[in-house]
């Protein structure tokens, strides 16, 4: 074939996301857009207390209210459903279960107590106001350290607020190393609680059809297949009769990687009433009833030689997991443990993760999930150490980097880093920021009373999750490629993108391999009736794992197409080359047969090659052999207004290495969003509870999700160090922005204020906190 005929290269190209025109012109279809005839609406009555005994529930007025069809109470629900599922079960962990409605004792503000089902949402909300729940308020425990030290018990029957303790590393070796270290840094570091805030709150529509006995559930979820299995158990409908559809999903950030009470309730109500039942969360509910993220206190000890060589690292982490475990709650802090070592050679390392119950909303996976915490601790620790040693923080980092020649690298935490070149990313970042010039400018401006600072974060993270041994429900992924009779291509994937753009990137891969136009490929996801199996989208896994299942299926299609071609052209399959949708004879490239022609042969099936089934479709399950480990360097430049404590983030440089890139636009988009969230953890976002367990930052008016004008224009660059873990060489990029950025900001602010004597400021860096730190360092009051 000639070069002119060859279709354009697609892999690696900045193709605009194909899903966007639909999403930004209002033609997307979210759960709340679906309105099957006869849909009923479900509204929840929630606990206003963080801890209380329910002494009476009177639903009689609500039952008789206009439009009300059913009222579900705790007793009823406890008999008719299984508890809210918990998949991550650690050794020795306490696991207090709850049902979709709680009757006896409520344990956090927002916990569901009664459900109303009515003809419309307004009538349901009106009726909810008529439900009378009597509570006897009990003392609540909000602070995890207090919870450990004999505060009120969240779960009386456990006799303790301790959920589980997980050690990692070699505690004795770490203790010895730190005792013998020439310099030791000790610091308490708070990684505060965050609220995920997807732009679309949770939503679910359950439709039980009594004829076939099927339950179809449309849910704003990241894990339709897991939800199918778990909901089948919870709502007691045989799994083969359950279909879950994730239509367009307006963001998840981990908080839709779960099974929620409302999903169980909608399913139960629909089964009972034999009508569709919809629940759509309000933003207010989203703040208290959808999982939160982070909330880990680290007590860090970092030991080094005077010349900066790290000798030991020990950390005790107290994770406030809230009132109950959700699907993966307990496992999230253990990801922090796994990633403690970061990008450095540390000869002795030990961690202890202590998970604690409090009367707050349960925590679970939130973008980054465990790695932002690990990165924050170590990268803050490195800056504290640099300050103590009087060493340049860049030099200190470089001195301890795992070298580019040392991969695969075994960590003290039992991981094998696949590949990396940490110096390359750092070098690139330093060049962009103009480090040396910045330092002289900084010194000059300090003379003029202006406080600028630069902060670094050199991170490594873990993604491509992951080997099945690392996940309670499997870490593989499935993918199908079907060449239709006309030669058009349908890709079905078990991942469930909700903003990550796989409708584009997967189509790029399939179109390039099969030599068809990208418009000839449709990527289908999120429907368990169409996609036979899958795990879902989280842990930056979709491309590295789901994309690999796709590649495996493309390999199979290629092989089968060759068989058909060989048969038709009367040559050996081995003599054929598959390229760009054409099969041609190696030695006689003018002899070709095209994909649509092969598809016709495969489906007409008149003259089948020996031992070959009709059809041109392949399904593969990919089980990854390892995680992947993206890395990079983030740099922040800030100026602090020492009069008000306000921080002006002037520049943010992000150099990320996610291995091979399928679509640089999508990579940039993922980094942008991740940076916004990671920077916001440092500057804007903090879930704050009062002593009674009321969420003070309970709305978008009080909890700052950053707007574009609160962030600088990001300066992005990449290095490319492919992974050998998968054939794409791709590592994953969904979370990196969140993981690397946060400590860079805090390091920059502390760098700015170092001449005033400031050594550390806890996140979030509220102006008031910054001003207090300045005043405290000066040794006076404002």
């Amino acid at each position, binding site marked *: 074939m000639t070069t002119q005929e060859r279709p354009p290269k697609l892999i690696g190209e900045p193709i605009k996301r194909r899903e966007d025109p639909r999403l930004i012109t209002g033609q997307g279809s979210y759960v709340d857009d679906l309105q099957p005839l006869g849909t009923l609406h479900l509204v929840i009555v929630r606990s206003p207390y963080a801890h209380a005994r329910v002494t009476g529930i009177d639903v009689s007025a609500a039952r008789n209210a206009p439009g009300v069809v059913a009222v579900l109470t705790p007793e009823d629900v406890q008999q008719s459903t299984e508890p809210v599922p918990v998949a991550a079960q650690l050794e020795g962990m306490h696991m207090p279960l709850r049902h979709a409605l709680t009757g006896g004792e409520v344990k956090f503000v927002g916990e569901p107590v009664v459900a109303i089902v009515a003809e419309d949402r307004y009538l349901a909300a009106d009726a909810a106001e008529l439900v009378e729940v009597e509570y006897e308020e009990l003392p609540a425990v909000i602070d995890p350290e207090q919870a450990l030290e004999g505060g009120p018990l969240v779960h009386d029957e456990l006799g303790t607020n301790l959920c589980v303790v997980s050690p990692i590393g070699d505690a004795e070796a770490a203790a010895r190393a730190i005792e013998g270290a020439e310099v030791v840094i000790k610091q308490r570091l708070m990684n505060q609680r965050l609220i995920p805030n997807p732009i679309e709150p949770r939503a679910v529509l359950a439709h039980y059809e009594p004829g076939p006995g099927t339950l179809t559930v449309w849910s704003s979820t990241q894990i339709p297949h897991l939800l199918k299995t778990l909901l089948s158990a919870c709502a007691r409908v045989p799994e083969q009769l359950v279909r879950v559809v994730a239509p367009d999903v307006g963001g998840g950030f981990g908080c839709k990687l779960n099974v929620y009470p409302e999903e169980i309730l909608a399913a139960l109500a629909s089964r009972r009433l034999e009508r569709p039942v919809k629940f759509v969360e309000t933003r207010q509910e989203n703040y208290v009833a959808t999982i939160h993220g982070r909330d880990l206190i680290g007590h860090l000890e970092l030991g080094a030689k005077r010349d900066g060589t790290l000798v030991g690292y020990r950390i005790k982490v107290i994770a406030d997991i809230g009132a109950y475990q959700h699907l993966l709650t307990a496992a999230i802090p253990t990801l922090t443990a796994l990633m403690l070592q970061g990008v450095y050679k540390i000869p002795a390392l030990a961690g202890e993760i202590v998970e604690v119950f409090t009367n707050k909303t349960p925590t679970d996976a939130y973008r980054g999930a465990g790695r932002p915490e690990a990165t924050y601790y170590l990268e803050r620790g490195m800056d504290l150490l640099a300050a103590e040693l009087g060493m340049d923080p860049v030099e200190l980092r470089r001195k301890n980097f795992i070298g580019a020649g040392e991969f695969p690298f075994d960590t003290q935490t039992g991981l094998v880093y696949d590949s990396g070149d940490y110096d390359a990313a750092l070098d690139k970042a330093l060049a962009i920021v103009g480090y040396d010039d910045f330092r002289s400018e900084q010194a000059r401006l300090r003379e003029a009373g202006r406080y600028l600072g630069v902060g670094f974060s050199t991170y490594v993270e873990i993604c491509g999750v992951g080997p099945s041994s690392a996940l309670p429900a499997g870490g593989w992924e499935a993918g199908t490629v079907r060449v239709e009779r006309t030669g058009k291509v349908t890709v079905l994937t078990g991942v469930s993108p909700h903003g990550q753009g796989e409708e584009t990137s997967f189509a790029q891969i399939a179109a390039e391999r099969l030599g068809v136009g990208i418009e000839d490929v449709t990527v289908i996801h999120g429907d368990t009736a169409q996609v036979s199996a899958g795990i879902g989208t989280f842990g930056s896994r979709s491309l590295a794992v789901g994309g690999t299942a796709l590649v495996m299926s493309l390999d199979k299609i290629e092989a089968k197409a060759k068989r058909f071609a060989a048969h038709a052209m009367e040559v050996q399959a081995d003599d054929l080359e598959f390229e760009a949708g054409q099969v041609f004879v190696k030695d006689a490239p003018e002899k070709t047969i095209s994909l649509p022609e092969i598809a016709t042969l495969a489906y007409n099936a008149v003259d089948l090659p020996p031992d070959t089934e009709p059809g041109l479709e392949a399904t593969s399950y990919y089980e990854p052999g390892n995680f992947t480990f993206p890395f990079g360097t983030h740099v922040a430049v800030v100026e602090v207004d020492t009069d008000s404590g306000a921080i002006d983030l002037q520049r943010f440089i992000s150099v990320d290495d996610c291995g091979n890139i399928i679509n640089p636009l999508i990579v940039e988009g993922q980094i942008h969003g991740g940076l916004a969230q990671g920077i916001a953890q440092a*500057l*804007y976002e903090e879930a704050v509870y009062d002593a009674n367990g009321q969420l003070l930052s309970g709305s978008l008016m009080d909890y700052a999700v950053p707007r574009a004008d609160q962030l600088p224009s990001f300066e992005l660059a990449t290095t490319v160090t492919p992974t050998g873990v998968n054939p794409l060489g791709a590592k994953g990029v969904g979370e990196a922005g969140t993981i690397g950025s946060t400590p860079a900001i805090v390091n920059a602010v502390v760098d700015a204020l170092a001449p005033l004597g400031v050594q550390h400021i806890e996140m979030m860096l509220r102006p008031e906190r910054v001003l207090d730190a300045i005043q405290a360092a000066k040794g006076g009051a*404002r």
Partner: protein
Amino acid sequence: MIPAAFEYAAPDSIDEAIALLERNDDAKLLAGGHSLLPLMKLRLAAPSLLVDLRRVSGLDGIEEANGEIRIGGMVTHAAIERSDLLVRRAPLLPAVAATIGDVQVRNRGTIGGSLAHADPAADLPAAVLALDAQLVARGAAGERVVSAADFFVDLLTTALDPGEVLTEVRVPVPGMGSGSAYAKFPNPASHYAIVGVAARVDMQDGRVREARVAVTGATATAYLSAAAAARLQGSSGDAAAIAEAAGLAAEGREMLEDLSASAAYRAHLVAVQARRALAEAVAAAG
């Protein structure tokens, strides 16, 4: 997020609107809806009737007459921000309006709604105080004029009677040698003011003839600091005088305390922002 049931009326005339308010005890006027609807969605407000002012004619003009600029109650923040007349003749108002919320909020929210709602963190109250505006209220009993200084009574409470419509804001046109500025320290979440200081300085022969320092966000209602104004008056508007005046701006006031700022920090911010607003105002007057 799901309001209770309510009736809705959109009368064509101001008299009809007033009559509807008279007849319905818990009726509420609806302007841009950007303060009222959030309250209704949270069921913190549940009026039985909304009287929408959007069809009422004569409430959306910005005109100059007899040394004052008259701004209709239904004029949006965006219209204020973009008004050439205001930018030329009373630039403090556009400067303040431009800091409100975001584009959508400014396109919907109105000056009448903002002043009548009297949110302690709203921006426009500081502007009308600094400009010594007169507010026109119309009710069943007729029209009356209330000075901005007497308008803000308490948290979310104004001198308006429940049956009155704020129809117009009258701003005396500042003379030659007048400068103004607004220094807002926004809440990063709501973008309302944690503290905002609007300053106006009238200079004559190199001396401050009159100064007005209006503070919002810090206390239950926006206020004018007489102490700060007095300190500045007669001075040359130099840095030392400004710093001293700014230091007085929070004096004797009970600061709000919430998640975004403690009382002590708010008092500190009042001084910082007052200093910045005054310095800018003096420079603009120059």
